[in-house]
């Protein structure tokens, strides 16, 4: 069996592990444009030298331990009839089973001058920003999502003057609700980051950005962090079914035989929103890669779906976990504040569909599991609200 994986990041790695578990013999070929197997979420830490170049790569050499033939090239076309890939070099690559794991690429605003700005998606991007920051004193970051805020934190540590511009009235939508986002905004502004909400740019200039209000903010480093879009351009003529991203079934199989997809490049069912969503999260990519790899190697592993919001992080001393439908104000909502923390639970009927924990995170995983499984809460709803839910509550009665 000849497996070909396009994209050497976490979805590809996770699939490789699953393939090897199920098929120790098959040939695994991986085509990728980057140096493979690093922890993408850690790249902001490269900017201010919080971690070393070495610590960003996987500790295990999975290329060696899993016997992967690595090809440093770009897939530019796919023929699912002939089961063949065309690479940028002109080489062709045949497969028995294919995994598309090309992830996502930064979304750019539709304004002039974006070529003068930076994005933060790859390790190379992080190095470029680091270099540019060395000679800079002011930076503007477009987009108040986690990536923008992480970049802001790193650049602030390097001593730059940082301004974040966010189109919506709140930062971190839809990963946090208004109140918790305001708490994060307070933390970062206290540290010295300027945050302008309900505003966007009309042009990237040589020495800054112009805003819709007509104002100009001077900057010698502009970072665009307004989100990502699935990397599906190269599949345009393949005939594969795509909508927002590559369409897959419950087994991560695409519309073509023997062709699977996983990670940021696919859309899958959101477990609480009950509609197809693009994940853009590491954790989801791990699970999808595992299911896809298992199925490619002849197993049968259903992928139940993803959570579009499944975030944990710490920003300026404020730890947080946010899961499920947390931002929309529909549903029955319970909120608790105090001690600089915040806890929100969102219920739909007898089910928990969203949770935010800020400050105190203990047992948050129990809630995550409930949101994932969508099990009715029954008489445990009260305990969930009181925050006294523990694993004992799920023990079968003796």
């Amino acid at each position, binding site marked *: 069996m000849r497996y070909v994986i396009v994209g050497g990041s976490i979805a590809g790695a996770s699939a490789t592990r699953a393939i090897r578990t199920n098929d120790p013999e098959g040939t695994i070929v991986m085509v990728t444009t980057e140096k493979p197997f690093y922890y993408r979420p850690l790249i902001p830490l490269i900017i201010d030298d919080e971690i070393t170049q070495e610590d960003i790569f996987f*500790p295990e050499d999975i290329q060696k331990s899993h016997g992967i033939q690595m090809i440093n090239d770009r897939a530019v076309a796919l023929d699912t009839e002939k089961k063949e890939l065309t690479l940028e070099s002109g080489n062709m690559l045949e497969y028995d089973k294919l995994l598309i794991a090309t992830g996502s690429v930064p979304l750019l605003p539709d304004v002039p001058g974006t070529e003068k700005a930076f994005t933060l998606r790859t390790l190379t991007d992080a190095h470029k920003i680091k270099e540019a920051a060395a000679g800079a004193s002011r930076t503007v970051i477009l987009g108040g999502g986690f990536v923008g805020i992480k970049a802001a934190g790193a650049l602030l540590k390097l001593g730059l003057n940082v301004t974040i511009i966010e189109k919506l009235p709140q930062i971190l939508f839809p990963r946090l609700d208004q109140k918790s986002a305001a708490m994060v905004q307070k933390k970062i502004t206290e540290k010295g980051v300027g945050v302008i909400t309900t505003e966007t740019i009309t042009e990237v200039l040589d020495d800054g950005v112009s805003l819709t209000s007509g104002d100009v903010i001077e900057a010698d480093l502009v970072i665009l962090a307004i989100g990502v879009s699935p990397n599906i351009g190269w599949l345009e003529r393949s005939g594969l079914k795509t909508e927002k991203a590559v369409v897959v079934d419950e087994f991560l199989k695409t519309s073509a035989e023997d062709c699977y997809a996983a990670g940021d490049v696919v859309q899958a069912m959101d477990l609480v929103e009950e509609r197809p969503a693009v994940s853009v999260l590491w*954790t989801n990519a*791990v699970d999808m890669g595992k299911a896809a790899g298992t199925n490619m190697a002849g197993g049968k592993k259903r992928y139940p779906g993803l959570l579009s919001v499944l975030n944990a992080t710490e920003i300026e001393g404020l730890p947080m976990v946010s899961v499920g439908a947390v931002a929309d104000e529909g549903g029955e909502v319970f909120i608790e504040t105090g001690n600089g923390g915040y806890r929100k639970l969102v219920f739909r009927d007898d089910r928990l569909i969203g949770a935010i924990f800020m400050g105190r*995170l203990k047992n948050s995983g129990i809630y*995550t599991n409930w949101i994932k499984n969508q099990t009715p809460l029954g008489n445990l709803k009260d305990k969930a609200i009181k925050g006294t839910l*523990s*694993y*004992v509550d799920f*023990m079968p009665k*003796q």
Partner: protein
Amino acid sequence: MDAIYVKPDRCMGCRSCEISCAVQHSEGKTLFSALLESPAPMKRLFVEATESVKMPILCRHCEDAPCLNACISGCLYKDENGFVRRKKERCIGCWTCMMVCPFGVVTRDVNKHLAVKCDRCHKLEVPACVNACPTKALVVKNLDEIPKEKRQNVILAETG
């Protein structure tokens, strides 16, 4: 694989296991010195109770561990005995493991900015909690020796 087996019907809720866990993970490793340490040493298991049951909740060292799968920094790994352990220096304190552990047994060391979890006392013959339990509500058992129905009932090694 050896696992710590919990017998809820024997647990009195005395928290001896919690104390010995914290002591084992202290600098001085004695109760006396641990009490004086600041910040206080952290326990890795938690005695929890409902109206009908008391029992310690501890890391199951899951075969397909959600924490390890989700870790975004390569800090968690499986050691040669199948225990889910931590490469401390790799932890960036992102709390992704806390977000996904279905048992709620990963916690946060606020001072060191590190995720904290059971390391199965890998340097000891018998884990500190097991050693400390006066009623033998905690015992080390080979999982394969326990009938499957019972295993699922009590040990819940599978996490979905």
